[in-house]
């Protein structure tokens, strides 16, 4: 209020004018200088980011704009450096948290935490996705110093899950600048994290690390896109902020607004690659590699394949797609990387992906071409044993429809990690090119019959041993063919490659049955 207006001369008009002034001031962000610096660093102001994300500005409904820091200084910190509200993305309502790093580097303080917490509660209580635009450098000093830190208005219980037992909501985060501390923690709660190439994401920033351990790092070295993608902290890196918003919109388009609703169907589209091509895409012979995405393109609807964490454990692909218009999560081996052998990173990624699909009524399709699990000291050091067991249990417990197709190899623990029979797939099919068993024939014969072959070589000569090895190999191969598996009902059927899309679609339809929603309350 203007100081020269005595309180007893207030009118509704003067109060409304005051409201207008305050609302405008609450939207100044970092002011002329702060916004200039922010833009010069190649980043967009938070309100422009929100406009970019939403269908239109009319759908924007903001709350908490008048929030201010608990600790006031002469510095104006509009909204306590965070913008919170609701809007529509492709017609879908979302809750939005946008950190305003054009002022006080977007650092968090009690008011901004309350605003964010409140927004998260709204989204969870009312059942729509949450979008977080991350770009901030941890907690604000001195606002969170000393006793204030342990007293922060941060509630992990309501922060991470609905507290009323309500359904989970999808969370997506865009990492649009250096994101450390709270901002990074936010991102790590998200089901999908997209980052722009020049952003970074880590627990704490380089300055904290240098004073703590003496290690000198740049933002990029510490948490740049390469690092964040390799460990699964982010799931996709894109060129610009507009791409990041589109990626979030695309991600959300596979998801229901909350776990209590079926995933949204779209019109069916023919695959980009004809299913007839499948028989030419996958070569026979265990040693020939190919790009599994080519296979997926011949099974999924055109322009529907959305990779999730391609660079994290890249021997395994996880992606969202649609088959005949219905969203699916696809888990597939990538023969181009490590011949598709699964390491601990790949298994952990798969666990999280299966959990994500199963949490949001998205059925899972497994495409097997796996020589096995990685073995050796490096594999053990990274915890493959526990990662494997944890994954197998998670697949087994997944209640959404699960359909597997063995394209070529499906050996050992790798096969089970891909939703083999012990993990309760609803349907399991194989191509006639499938090879199945606990180990590939070459290594298998040498491992299992080593003593017998050594004995024959010693008693009857090398030639006899080689002959026996060849016989054992043939027997092994015969037993690995899909025909015996089908004969013993380990497989539900053996199908022609060209039928894969149709069979998967029909199986999923049957497996949904008359229960359109499969969410177990966890």
């Amino acid at each position, binding site marked *: 209020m203007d100081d020269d207006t005595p309180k007893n001369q207030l009118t509704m008009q003067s109060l409304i004018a005051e409201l207008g002034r305050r609302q405008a001031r609450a939207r100044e962000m970092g002011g002329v200088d702060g916004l200039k610096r922010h833009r010069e660093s190649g980043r967009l102001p938070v309100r422009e980011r929100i406009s970019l994300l939403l269908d239109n500005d009319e759908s924007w409904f903001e709350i908490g704009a008048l929030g201010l820091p608990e600790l006031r200084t002469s510095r104006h910190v509009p909204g306590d450096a965070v913008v919170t509200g609701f809007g529509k993305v492709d017609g879908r309502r979302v809750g939005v948290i946008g950190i305003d790093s054009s002022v006080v580097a977007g650092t968090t303080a009690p008011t901004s935490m309350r605003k964010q917490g409140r927004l998260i509660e709204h989204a969870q209580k009312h059942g729509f996705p949450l979008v977080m635009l991350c770009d901030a450098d941890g907690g604000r000093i001195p606002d969170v110093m000393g006793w204030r830190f342990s007293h922060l208005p941060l509630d992990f219980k309501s922060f991470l899950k609905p507290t009323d037992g309500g359904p989970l909501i999808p969370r997506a985060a865009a990492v649009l600048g250096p994101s450390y501390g709270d901002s990074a923690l936010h991102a790590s709660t998200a089901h999908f994290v997209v980052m722009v190439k020049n952003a970074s994401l880590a627990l704490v920033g380089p300055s904290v690390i240098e004073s703590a351990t003496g290690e000198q790092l740049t933002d990029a070295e510490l948490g740049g896109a390469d690092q964040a993608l390799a460990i699964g902290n982010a799931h996709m890196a894109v060129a610009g902020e507009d791409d990041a918003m589109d990626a979030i919109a695309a991600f959300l388009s596979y998801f229901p607004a909350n776990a209590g609703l079926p995933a949204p*169907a779209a019109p069916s589209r023919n695959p980009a690659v004809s299913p007839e091509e499948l028989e030419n895409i996958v070569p026979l012979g265990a040693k020939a590699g190919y790009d599994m995405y080519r296979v997926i393109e011949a099974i999924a609807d055109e322009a529907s394949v959305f990779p999730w964490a391609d660079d994290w454990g890249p021997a395994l692909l996880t992606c969202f797609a649609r088959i005949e218009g219905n969203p699916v999560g696809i888990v597939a081996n990538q023969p181009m990387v490590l011949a598709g052998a699964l390491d601990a990173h790949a298994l952990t990624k798969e666990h999280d992906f299966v959990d994500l699909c199963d949490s949001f009524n998205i059925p899972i399709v497994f495409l097997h071409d796996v020589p096995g699990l990685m073995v050796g000291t490096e594999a053990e050091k990274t915890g493959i044993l526990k990662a494997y067991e944890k994954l197998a249990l998670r697949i087994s417990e997944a209640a959404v429809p699960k359909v597997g197709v063995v394209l070529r190899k499906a050996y050992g623990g790798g096969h089970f990690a891909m939703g083999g029979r012990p993990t309760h797939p609803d349907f399991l099919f194989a191509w006639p090119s499938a090879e199945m068993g606990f180990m590939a024939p070459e290594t298998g014969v040498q491992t299992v019959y080593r003593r017998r072959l050594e004995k024959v070589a010693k008693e009857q000569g090398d030639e006899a041993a080689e002959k026996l090895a060849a016989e054992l190999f043939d027997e092994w191969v015969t037993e690995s063919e899909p025909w015996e598996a089908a004969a013993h009902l380990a497989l539900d059927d053996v199908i022609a490659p060209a039928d894969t899309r149709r069979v998967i679609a029909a199986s999923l339809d049957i497996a949904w049955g008359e229960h359109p929603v499969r969410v177990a309350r966890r």
Partner: protein
Amino acid sequence: MLTSVLVANRGEIAVRLIRACKGLGIRAVAVYSEADAGALHVRLADEAYLLGPAPAAQSYLNVDRILAVCRDAGVEGVHPGYGLLSENADFAAAVVGAGLVFVGPEPDTIARMGDKVVAREAAKSCEIPLLPGSDGPVDSLPAAERVAEEIGYPLVVKACFGGGGRGMRVVREARQLREALEQAERESSAAFGRGEVYLERYVPQARHVEVQVLADGQGGVIHLGDRDCSVQRRHQKLVEEAPAPALPEGVRRSLREAAVRLARSVGYRSAGTVEFLVDSRENHYYFLEMNTRLQVEHGVTELVTGVDLVEWQLKIAAGEVLDFDQDRVTIRGHAIQARIGAEDPWEGFRPCPGRIGALKLPLGPWLRLDFGVEGGDDIPAFYDAMFGKIQAWGQNREAARQRLVSALHDFEAPGVQSTAPYLRHVLEQSDFIEVRHHTGSVESSWQPEDIERPVMVSDAPPMPTGKPEDSISERRVSLSTSRGTLDIAVYGRIGHSRASEAATGAPAAKRQSDPERQAEPVAPMDSTVVKVPVAAGDRVSKGDTLVILEAMKMELQITAPWDSVVEDVLVEVGQTARRGARLVSLSGKEGNEVKPGS
């Protein structure tokens, strides 16, 4: 020929201009506001540049920004379209000053014709009849009263620098003059930055007839026939046709010659329009004004002459001369246009922006459609509500009329209320069919209330898709990722507004409320009229109490939404007013519509 042109406009005219550029092999550069990101004109252009935030003042009217884009994009010329900056002489001068070609007349011509008093002088020197009026701005009430005595009542107070019906007041008797002057000055100052007004005789029941001229600035000046634009609401044209029907040949010839005379005398270049009032009872005509730009209704002239006006604007701007003369211009058949706006005729033509669902454009022979949107696009709240035009050609007026009626019948824009059903009704009126209508017919005789209001398409049950989502939008996104480009089809939800429909009973698209866009006051709920402190003829100021209602033991004051005159009181004390019932009828509120065109 120019090789690149920046289209400094939006919506259907930007689309029209971009298409013309493409036809001539000109690189078309679009500009857009944040509200128009991804709009059709942006999608069609060879390149597009963001101007700024949604409000026009910060985007489409931001001269500095547009000039900066011209530099960045390296264009040779600028086409302003209609509305927005098209008749802004300073803009034209700035374009020329930047070494670019302005597709239109000389900046000085725009400035002179934009000053109504100067334009009247020019018409006078060409011996074109003028309505009796003040020869210049009137600067005081006594001066105005003196002039008013001379020209007689009714008269009209007009802003010297106005346009599109803004800054205009009809004065029926002397005691209204003072207020009309004040209002017109106030409105004109607010809208155009200049408050000068002049007086002119008001001709009731006149027709609006205009002549299209085309001049190459190198001696070639021709006309392309006339148009009738008498179907207007508050000076905003709704239906236009070419040629003007039922005009005595003598008057028609005289109008056309007058228009060419005027264009020649002011050294006109490019396409322009000279507007006249025709007093059809006496077959007199009077000069109104000259529009120094392309008109919204240019298409009907193109249909009956076969001359592409935009193409000629571009050619002339590039220095070409007209390669045909007046004798080669023949008027063939008849064409009528209906302007399609996202407005609700049943709620005082209130704009209702929103997202259009599955847009259904009429298909058929002899139709021309100019639209600025496709299905799934938004009509932003920030700009003019017109988003397209439907034109029909016929061997004669009746054939064209029937084709247009049928086209309007087939038109659907789910998600918004449009003017199409109302205009179809207008085209069926016997006064229109027999050309007995005039510029006041819409307001005096063709009230939307007399027509059954069609159900908004999105109110009806959605078409069954067999899918869980009722209505699905689709767009393509292209993501530049660390692993190459991903093309993803993103499906969204349309018309899913469960919350808003349940809460308000109104579709979401119509929830936007702009205080400037209020219609006449209605009863907000079922209630009893307890007091009516006004009577017909009373002048009321904004905020004055019109009616007091009582409902649920609570008094509700219904106040005037704008300064006006009470034309009629529609309720009496003790009467029950149903929710939504009109209570009083107020004189027109002019000057609030933000229309780029005329």
